[in-house]
């Protein structure tokens, strides 16, 4: 434990927290917040992102973009090393990205590189070279994209874009999977003790401002009730950082806010309802609007979430300040039963209509889902059929062509771009229907498809000027979420954490909702 690290030195201290077992901590397949926390601290890529989505250059000393947005040239900072002594150079990026996109890796995060030229060939196993990524020299990385993208630099904050040393080998190198050798502020002590713990220690040879903490102990917790355990652990003094079960939030806030141990932030994500656009009864914008109007977000936020969730009226999160439009979804702003009924009538959403309402079980959605269902029943007289499914089944059902009604869903940003919401959730290209099974393989499961919207996105992507681009994105969002009501925003992604500020300074929640380990220092 960290009990004996009371020394007042700024360097040192052990920070303890609980996580669930990550899928992977090797950048080739790091995906969820747990793995991201570890990988981000083991590896440093081109940029780092601030909690509000700003880029801070790390290995990228500079970046230049061609006018068509297709060619990106990054100057790599010289002289930094992996912890095994290998230099970090352009080649280590080429190596890493190829490793991710390779077919044999079957990486779940490879698709983030889908815009890079040669991805298809590499990912389908036609070649083992990544045509679009080139180390011009040790300090220069050149990336060619298939279509123009002026925000490609922002994407590289994803762990998949981290450099790896030669020692990494292929993606199935178990030794590296469990004990990655990185270039980050921390290095792993020993290797990943599955389901038990991961210990990080300070990388004293870090090429940037060194971490202050001597050690970070990540206890791996039972995924079934991590939040409860973290919270209990924090209260018992076992953890210095904790999430909380939603039901306990208000009590926890009362208890810890006065102590200054309460952290809250609206982060880069959205909770919404997928509405199946192509199937009755929600195949008209009016029907979808009726649903949206019928929901009293405020009441649920207050009653069910004890005020700990905030209603959302847009898809893009407030943390993306340049594109955020509060109230862009007019139906979301306030419950309006009259309008709801009127629109329902107009769209043939008669009382008694059966509305399937799906959600995935075991993730704490049971409660509010029932509240929404009740409101739809009360306001529109719909016969709402709650359909709780374990995750895999839920997903498979959502993907099905015949599925109708609404599903609970949420989206968290991978990187701070509007495109990261607007394309996957709403673009026609993101339906990606499997011709054989008719399943929507992309994330646009509501199968919203509006050529006008797609055009707006294309335009935005091809716009070099950031402000103009933001305007186009805003326009697209308004079209999909307001005019067409392709999906139904519910609440913002608001996150709460407890941090042991009695022992540590400068504890914050980062863009990925994790503690900013590299900046924390012991008191």
């Amino acid at each position, binding site marked *: 434990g960290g009990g004996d690290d009371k020394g007042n030195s700024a360097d040192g201290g052990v920070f303890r927290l609980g996580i669930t077992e990550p899928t992977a901590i090797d950048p080739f397949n790091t995906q969820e917040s747990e793995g991201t926390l570890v990988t981000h601290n083991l590896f440093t890529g081109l940029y780092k992102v601030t909690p509000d989505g700003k880029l801070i250059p790390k290995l990228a000393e500079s970046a230049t973009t061609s006018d068509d947005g297709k060619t990106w040239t990054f100057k790599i900072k010289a002289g930094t090393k992996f912890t095994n002594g290998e230099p970090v150079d352009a080649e280590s990026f080429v190596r890493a990205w190829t490793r991710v996109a390779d077919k044999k890796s079957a990486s779940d995060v490879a698709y983030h590189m889908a815009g890079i030229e040669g991805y298809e060939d590499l990912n389908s196993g036609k070649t083992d070279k990544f045509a679009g990524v080139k180390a011009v020299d040790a300090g220069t990385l050149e990336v060619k994209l298939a279509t123009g993208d002026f925000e490609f630099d922002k994407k590289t904050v994803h762990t998949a874009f981290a450099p790896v040393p030669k020692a990494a080998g292929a993606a199935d190198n178990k030794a590296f999977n469990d004990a990655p050798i990185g270039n980050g502020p921390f290095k792993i002590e020993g290797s990943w003790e599955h389901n038990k713990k991961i210990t990080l220690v300070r990388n004293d040879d870090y090429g940037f401002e060194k971490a202050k903490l001597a050690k970070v102990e990540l206890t791996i917790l039972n995924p079934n009730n991590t939040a409860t355990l973290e919270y209990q652990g924090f209260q018992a003094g076992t953890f210095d950082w904790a999430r909380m079960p939603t039901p306990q939030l208000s009590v926890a806030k009362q208890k810890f806010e006065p102590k200054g141990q309460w952290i809250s932030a609206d982060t880069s994500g959205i909770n919404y309802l997928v509405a199946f656009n192509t199937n009755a009864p929600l195949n008209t914008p009016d029907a979808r609007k009726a649903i949206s109007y019928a929901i009293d977000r405020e*009441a649920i936020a207050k*009653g069910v979430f004890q005020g700990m969730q905030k209603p959302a009226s847009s898809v893009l999160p407030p943390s993306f300040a340049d594109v955020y439009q509060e109230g862009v979804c007019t139906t979301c702003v306030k419950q309006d039963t009259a309008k709801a009924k009127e629109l329902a009538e107009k769209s043939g959403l008669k009382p008694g209509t059966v509305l399937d309402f799906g959600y995935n079980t075991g993730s704490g959605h049971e*409660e509010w889902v029932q*509240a929404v269902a009740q409101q739809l029943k009360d306001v529109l007289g719909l016969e709402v059929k709650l359909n709780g499914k374990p995750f895999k089944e839920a997903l498979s059902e959502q993907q099905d062509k015949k599925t109708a009604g609404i599903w609970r869903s949420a989206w968290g940003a991978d990187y701070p771009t509007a495109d990261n919401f607007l394309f996957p959730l709403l673009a026609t290209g993101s339906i990606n229907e499997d011709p054989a099974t008719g399943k929507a393989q992309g994330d646009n499961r509501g199968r919203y498809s509006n050529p006008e919207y797609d055009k707006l996105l294309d335009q935005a992507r091809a716009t070099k000027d950031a402000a103009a681009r933001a305007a186009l994105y805003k326009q697209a969002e308004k079209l999909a979420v307001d005019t067409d009501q392709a999906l139904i925003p519910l609440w913002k992604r608001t996150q709460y954490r407890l941090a042991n500020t009695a022992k540590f300074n400068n504890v914050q929640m980062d863009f990925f909702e994790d503690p900013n380990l590299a900046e924390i220092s012991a008191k």
Partner: protein
Amino acid sequence: MTELTKSTADSGTAEPAAGAATATANAEPAVARITQWGEIRHRFVANKLAVVGLVLVAVLFLTAIFAPLLAPQDPYHQDLTNTLADPSSAHWLGTDALGRDQFSRIIFGTRIAVEVGLASIFLACTIGIVIGALSGYFGKATDSVLMRIADVFFAFPLIIGAIVIIMAMGRGVMPVIISLAVFSWPTVARLLRSSILSVREADYVHAARALGAGTSRIIIRHIIPNSIAAVMAYAAFSVGGAIVAEASLSFLGVGVSPEVPEWGNMLAGAKDFLGVKDYLWVYPSIAIVLTVLGFVFVGDGLRDALDPKLR
């Protein structure tokens, strides 16, 4: 209650008569008729815990039947302006996270409990009795095959097997009932089989065969009635177990749909309120415990009452 006390008194007076009958039957012929059921009832009623159990079970049944009359509110009615309200005169047991009246939900919860508990055990007993009887009476290859099949199901831990089935069938009351039954029948079958094995060689069975009785008659009239006692007691006892298992499934998120007023659901919803809103899990727990205790007591009482050796 008056009923019960009365019957206690009744059999209380009947008993010495029975004793006298055994002893001096030849002397005085006019003795009150004492049936076997009377005897069993007497032994059962004399067992205080069993009576307590019976009362609990009776209360449960009545509550289930008259739930709409007893519940002060609609168990589905949400009041988002009054969520997580502590117990008060308006809501005796408080409200849950959706502002639903907990008391009403607990009352309605008896229905699922009764339904699942009885139906699953009934089903399990039916399968178990048929298979156990066949296995025990015919022995040999029939026995081996049936018992290996029983072993397969017996070797699956109940909850695990149930989860797999529910996954395949979807959530709902029926899948829960079926999955509980599918993994409980082997116990019944084994129980019945072993008592049949001992009864099968009893002299009275030989006697019946000597009279020319056929197989079905022997099984139905002689073997089953004499070996079913253990099964009945086990069944009563297991109804409690099934209710707990069903609640466990809901607790694990694979039981009946969460809006359904059901105790396991209530507990699952309440477990995160541990230490904050304890009444949310305390009351459903009490409901489960009392129900299970009721059936356990009844089962125990039945076992003792049906066993003429135990006095």
